[in-house]
């Protein structure tokens, strides 16, 4: 337990935030980097996923991508890209994008596909154009599952961004790896606790956003848990 005291002292010590480790900057780096990856994944994955879900074409591709991506070792991807692209942010950005894309794609696809076909048919029957069907019916109803996909991607990215410091010396992984070299276990533990807290906070934020989307999509029925379970079912099988 002494180690935990040491770790918490290190986190609370103002010197950790201003001195060598610059914790505030590290947290911001970690968040900004993760957000950039997630944004890129969303810009690429959500339109593609929606197109697949809307048209029903390319379904096999999404399933193969999501199950294949799970087997791909993150560290292997990071290091091979690191060797190819050199030290810097490009390699981890690309590696994280490869990781984040499948869950985003799967969420967007599963969300649009899970919308009741009768509802879509009804919207068409009362004269909605195809764009209106998409924007006013399919997307709002699919939103909880789409956000579920973003949520698993965010989790993955925040977690792997720690590992990215192994090749790019950025984010909260930086103090962790530095302390690993100097054998300062308390610092390592402190950095790990900060990463874990950051991941938990992001997870809770996404949970709240997803709940709000679920209430809007199905005000009478769906609890967020059920929407999340559905998203997981689609992305994990």
């Amino acid at each position: 337990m002494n180690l935990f005291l040491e770790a918490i002292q290190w986190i609370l010590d103002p010197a950790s935030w201003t001195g060598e480790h610059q914790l505030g900057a590290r947290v911001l780096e970690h968040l900004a980097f993760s957000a950039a990856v997630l944004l890129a994944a969303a810009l690429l994955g959500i339109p593609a996923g929606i197109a697949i879900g809307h048209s029903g074409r390319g379904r096999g591709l999404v399933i193969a991508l999501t199950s294949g991506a799970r087997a791909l070792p993150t560290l292997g991807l990071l290091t091979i890209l690191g060797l190819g692209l050199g030290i810097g942010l490009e390699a981890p950005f690309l590696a994280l994008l490869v990781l984040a894309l499948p869950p985003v794609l799967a969420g967007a696809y599963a969300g649009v596909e899970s919308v009741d076909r009768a509802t879509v048919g009804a919207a068409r029957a009362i004269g909605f154009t195809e764009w209106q069907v998409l924007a006013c019916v399919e997307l709002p109803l699919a939103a909880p599952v789409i956000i579920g996909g973003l949520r698993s991607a965010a989790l993955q990215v925040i977690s792997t961004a720690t590992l990215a410091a192994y090749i790019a010396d950025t984010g909260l992984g930086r103090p962790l790896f530095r302390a690993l070299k100097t054998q300062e276990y308390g610092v390592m533990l402190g950095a790990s606790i900060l990463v874990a807290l950051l991941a938990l906070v992001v997870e809770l934020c996404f949970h709240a956003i997803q709940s709000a989307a679920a209430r809007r999509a199905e005000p009478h029925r769906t609890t967020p848990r059920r929407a999340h379970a559905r998203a997981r079912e689609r992305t994990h099988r």
Partner: protein
Amino acid sequence: MNWLSQNLHIVGQLLADHLALSIPPILLSLAISVPLGRLAAGSGRLRAPLLTATGLLYAIPSLALFVILPPILGLPLRSGATMVAALTVYGCALLVRGAADAFDSVPEDVRLAAAATGHSRWALFWRVELPLAGPVLLSALRVVVVSTVSLVTVGAVIGISSLGTLFTDGFQRGIDASIVTGIVLTVAVAFLLDALCVLAARALMPWQRVRA
């Protein structure tokens, strides 16, 4: 290929290490999650806290967990036991929910019929609920198998030897072949263990044609 033929014995050793680190957590998390999942499925009160707690565990980044667990459990940082413990935590984070879903999928009528024909609670669990929960449980287990095999490699950055060592070594010494070998073997091990799970499930559940 040249690199591989010269380093075959090292790669073989790392492969063995990798298997020794990935199989125990898979079996442990299965043994822990089935009863917990049954508990969550059976009780309205326990369900939410159990599933929320295990879900949050899954949110903790693996590298952080590898560092946080040893002082809690009193283990040294660079040990296989740390790795097994951490991966068991992740396995349970995924499997408890999977097991709860699996037991939820057992039709209530069947449960009632089994109770009415005189099955004790124990027999009901082993002879009715568990076999019927099997297929859903299997699909959750397969996710755990694949993600465990892949996560073992992360331990290499704190010095736990596995196929991940091929990544750290290859990166530090600039050997592409080492990293590529590691990636290919990790994916191969994941698919192999996954296939074994499916085969075992076919043998255990002969009445069920397991979906690929």
